[in-house]
């Protein structure tokens, strides 16, 4: 592999520009994720986000392009994007209402109706694009669409030492990015500080109970679906009028589906959903960056989707564990050691997370075996693939016992500590080592990486609850 190319990619990843690009690519995931969160919490998960996004993305492009005809070039350029946004969101609301009508009124299956909405959104946008422009692929060149304004921060911030780093991240971001991240707060306020939000969560948790205290379940669900439509619409607008500046067939490429997964990963909370979206944004941005490396471009493209599956797994395991702990708490009553179980739960997440990361290694190694020509030929790919695969499987293997039987974390503290810090050591060592390669400490990067990784791994394990477990075990041994 070309060393200088590799280093320039590394430098790209450890830079403020990369963080800025994470924000940019997170936006079209975060917005529909918030929509998915609200519909999910109301018990009516909106599968149709993908199609809704496409419809609003297309509507925005069309209206922003025609606004210049209707209002003249200069006025049109000013109000065009906003007109496009309003019309796009209105169309998205219509789509959501269609879903709501079929599910809530005509009792159609929610999931299948959502699928229908996706098919409809994809097909209708392509058909109308063909009718309007004669193009089947995209509107680039045939529709002079506009993009949402980009927000420039005040220039003086650029010169303040620490702030300048953040300045470079937040400067020149689309207004949609700001809307997206501010929406997290809005959604949080709506869900936890307004009566409607409380009703919404009640309806999602137990519709019969909610109905019995006089909450109008159907109306709340209509509202939830419409709100999810609004967010999907905003996400679509960002796709075609910020992220790109034209409409392309099926341009959302699965973001509406990823958005269904982020609320799970985020624990059903707006802030968590925001962080989960950032994780996907990270993988998305990463796949764009490492695309210039000499590896098949499809490999990094898989990562966000694989991450979604793994996130689902972690979420599902956590949900199982939580319910188990709840049962234990009610069974043990007074004697229940809440801090102990909290620590175990945190550490189990650590184990799961580490094992899941190793799944990436397995996929990479499989890819190397399936398509060795993409990785500098079989001579390089097979041994490297075998090594990566063996290491990954070993890492999964040492963490797996603690995932399947979480009690082992408490019983075999030393083994759990060894497993997690060994894995962490490897990951963090790799990360530090790679980071140091971009700095002046390049030559010592391997040694420093190993040391830093070990220290950070043990520190993280202790911080997450290991320290309490150690004390607990000593107490058990003595008492």
């Amino acid at each position, binding site marked *: 592999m070309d060393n200088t190319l590799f280093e320039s990619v590394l430098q790209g990843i450890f830079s403020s520009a990369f963080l800025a690009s994470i924000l940019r690519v997170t936006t079209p995931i975060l917005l529909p994720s918030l929509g998915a969160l609200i519909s999910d919490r109301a018990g009516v998960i909106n*599968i149709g986000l993908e199609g809704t996004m496409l419809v609003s993305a297309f509507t925005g492009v069309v209206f922003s392009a025609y606004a210049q005809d209707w209002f003249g070039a200069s006025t049109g350029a000013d109000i065009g994007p906003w007109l496009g946004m309003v019309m796009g969101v209105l169309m998205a609301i219509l789509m959501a209402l269609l879903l709501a009508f*079929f599910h809530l*009124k*005509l*009792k*159609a*299956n929610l*999931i*299948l*109706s959502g*699928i*229908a*909405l*996706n*098919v*409809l959104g*994809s*097909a*209708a946008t*392509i*058909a109308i694009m*063909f*009718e309007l422009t004669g193009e*089947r692929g995209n509107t680039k060149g045939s529709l002079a669409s506009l993009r949402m304004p980009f927000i420039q921060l005040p220039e003086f911030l650029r010169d303040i030492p620490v702030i300048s780093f953040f300045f470079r991240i937040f400067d020149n971001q689309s207004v949609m990015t700001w809307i997206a991240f501010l929406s997290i707060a809005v959604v949080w306020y709506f869900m936890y500080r307004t009566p409607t939000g409380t009703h919404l969560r009640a309806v999602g948790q137990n519709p019969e109970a909610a109905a019995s205290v006089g909450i109008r379940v159907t109306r709340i669900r209509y509202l939830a679906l419409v709100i999810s439509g609004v967010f999907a619409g905003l996400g679509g607008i960002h796709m075609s009028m910020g992220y790109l500046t034209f409409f392309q067939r099926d341009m959302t490429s*699965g973001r509406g*589906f*990823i958005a*269904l*997964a982020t609320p*799970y990963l985020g624990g059903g909370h707006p802030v968590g959903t925001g962080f989960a979206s950032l994780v996907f944004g990270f993988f998305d941005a990463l796949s764009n960056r490492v695309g210039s490396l000499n590896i*098949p471009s*499809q*490999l990094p*493209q*898989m990562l966000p*989707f*694989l991450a*979604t*599956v793994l996130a*689902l*797994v972690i*979420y*599902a*395991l956590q*949900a*199982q564990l939580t319910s188990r702990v709840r049962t234990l708490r009610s069974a043990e009553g007074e004697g229940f050691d809440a801090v102990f179980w909290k620590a175990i739960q945190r550490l189990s997440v650590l184990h799961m997370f580490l094992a899941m990361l190793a799944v990436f290694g397995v*996929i990479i190694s499989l*890819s190397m075996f*399936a*398509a*060795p*020509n*993409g990785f500098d030929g079989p001579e390089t790919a097979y041994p490297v693939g075998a090594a990566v695969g063996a290491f990954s499987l070993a890492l999964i293997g040492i963490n797996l016992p603690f995932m399947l039987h979480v009690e082992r974390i408490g019983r075999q503290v030393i083994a759990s500590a060894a497993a997690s810090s060994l894995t962490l050591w490897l990951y963090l060592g790799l990360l530090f080592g790679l980071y140091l390669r971009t700095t002046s400490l390049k030559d010592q990067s391997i040694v420093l990486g190993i040391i830093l990784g070990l220290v950070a791994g043990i520190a993280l394990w202790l911080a997450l609850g290991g320290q309490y477990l150690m004390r607990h075990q000593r107490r058990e041994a003595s008492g």
Partner: protein
Amino acid sequence: MNQRHFSRHLPLIAFSVLIGLGVMFFITYRVFGGSWETMTNAPNYVSLIIVNALIGFCVLLFVVELRWDALRVILTVIFALLLGGLVTAVFFLDAANKYVQGEFRVQVVSDAEPLIDMGYGDRMTELFNNPNVDEPVKEVSYQFVGREGDEIAVLAYVEDRNADLDMAVALLDANDEVLAEASGATEEQLRTFRRYLKTENDAVIESFVLPADGTYSVVARMENPDSDARGEATVVVVSEGGESPVDMAYNAPVGATFNAPNASDPITEAAYRFAGSRGDVISVLSYAARSNVAVDLEVALVGPDGAVLAESTGSTAEQVAAYRPNLNSERDAIIEGFTLPASGIYTVRTQPEPLTTSMRISETVSQTADAYETFLLGPLSRQNRWVIWMRDALTLIMLGLAIAIVFRAEQFSLGADGQLYFGALAAGALVLAFGDLPKILLVPVALLSAATAGFLWGLVPGVLKAYLGANELVSTLMLNTVAARFYEMVITEQLQPPDAGFTTSDWFASNGLLTPIIDVAGDQVTIAVYLLIILVLITWVLIQRTPLGYEIRMIGANIKFANFGGVNSKRTIMLAMAISGAVAGLAGAHLAMGIHRRLILNISLGLGFEGVVVALLARNNPLVVPFTGLLYAYLRTGAQVMERDANVSSEVVRIIQAVVILLITADALVAFFRQRRITRRGTIELDDGSGEAGGLTASAQEVAHG
């Protein structure tokens, strides 16, 4: 089925047999264009008829299995098709525009001597004093028309400097009064008109202002008629205004294009002037420039004083015949046999006939109907289209079976796409690697490996759902993308031959292909037809006649009840998703080994979703899936034909797909109609036993029956 039972169902069975036979004959008739000879000349026509008989049998199964529900399926599809028709009509909203746009010609036909010979700027050249003819030309006269106030210059000159021809020129008005004369040119005039004049022998009348509108003549002669000088002399009238007051002469067509689609400032009407003498009998024609231009024209003749003298909006069939090839249709306009009342400049005005709303509507409707006819009958219009329909149907039926299995367990797994990719990849890689194995070994092994790959890839979301409770919808969708990227990676990096122009694997060796039973110019229907019959039966047996199938149906009906009843729901859900994956993997193998005959990029393009429609329409009943698969593939093929022939986006069929899903799952719709039926009859039939309970929820009753 006992005797009493059978006799009770006899009318239904007879009815469905009739429908099945009807469908079989109709398809066979259409495919061969209703001609016995075409049929017997076609290769493999027996196989084709056998397959058509199978199609008929699928129809029979559909009616027998679903009974009244079949009616609902058909009504839903018809309703969706009507909506699709509306969408198609959108593409033809401006269909009537063809009557107001297009290239046209205007021509004035007359036998009369033209009043004028030239316009401003026309160079009229004549060979003077040619000794080889009996009467050598010594003098020429040309007519032109001018307007009052036009400032003109009349020039007579000899191009060849050595000709030594000395010219004189005179300008006369309509009454032959000489208005001006000249017999030479000054130095200054030579400079001013250096584009024309060559020597001082040339003659020029400069800066003459015409006194009135009308015709004028120019007479150019040799100054010394007796000289031997000879050569070509040119006469030209130059106007400072530059523009000639006439645009056309008799029998010379002129034209332009009305409402050109891409013009920034399209022409909507046109006017052309010509000069005519009193008593000239003329016919004015305005017609489409080519026979494929449909512009509908009207024409008016306007006299010199601006009064409309004659108008026409069309022509009769006799006129069209008489003025061929200029006139092509009765849309072209003609003013025939008009006698000009006075000499002067006339104007022909022409424009497309204004569109009326009823014309717009009728044109939109008729074009939509035409397009929809190609959509609805397209797959039967040619044998190769029938083949494409069949092989698409085979894939869709397999996917429909795959989806039916998981949907039967109420698992919304959409992983068929990903499983298909891995099935295709496994089969393809095997065939490419071991192409020299005997066919009898290679094909079954490839199919088996495809099924295994699909099984394993289906096992992943199965395990995640069954043992961890991970949402199967999200996980399968994500795994689909992972599978698609993996497939793409292997094709681009590993299987693509170095010299291939685009991303695809090598062609499979013939040992690795499914044997064709019908071959129409390279498009093949393979033995997959017969394999599919076995697959349908296996799936049916699995769901209806095995403990596992019973458990799957129990879980689908009510998972809590199933758990109480001792069903190992985790294992069953996992197996249902994995088995569904195996079937989807076979669909991938069919795509690779039966249709494309190599591995191509985008081998699926969302086929999994279409499998959902197929399964839903079939009520997740494996015996009905073949019919709905055929139906849906028919619509897909028809849409492609329509896209090609009528330029309507084939996405229309996906809009129909969306409508079908929405309507077929809308249970309240059924309840609404059933309510009506009960009210009408006043009784409720309880022992019906057919799958009246709509939607995905197979009723508990049905489970008990099975």
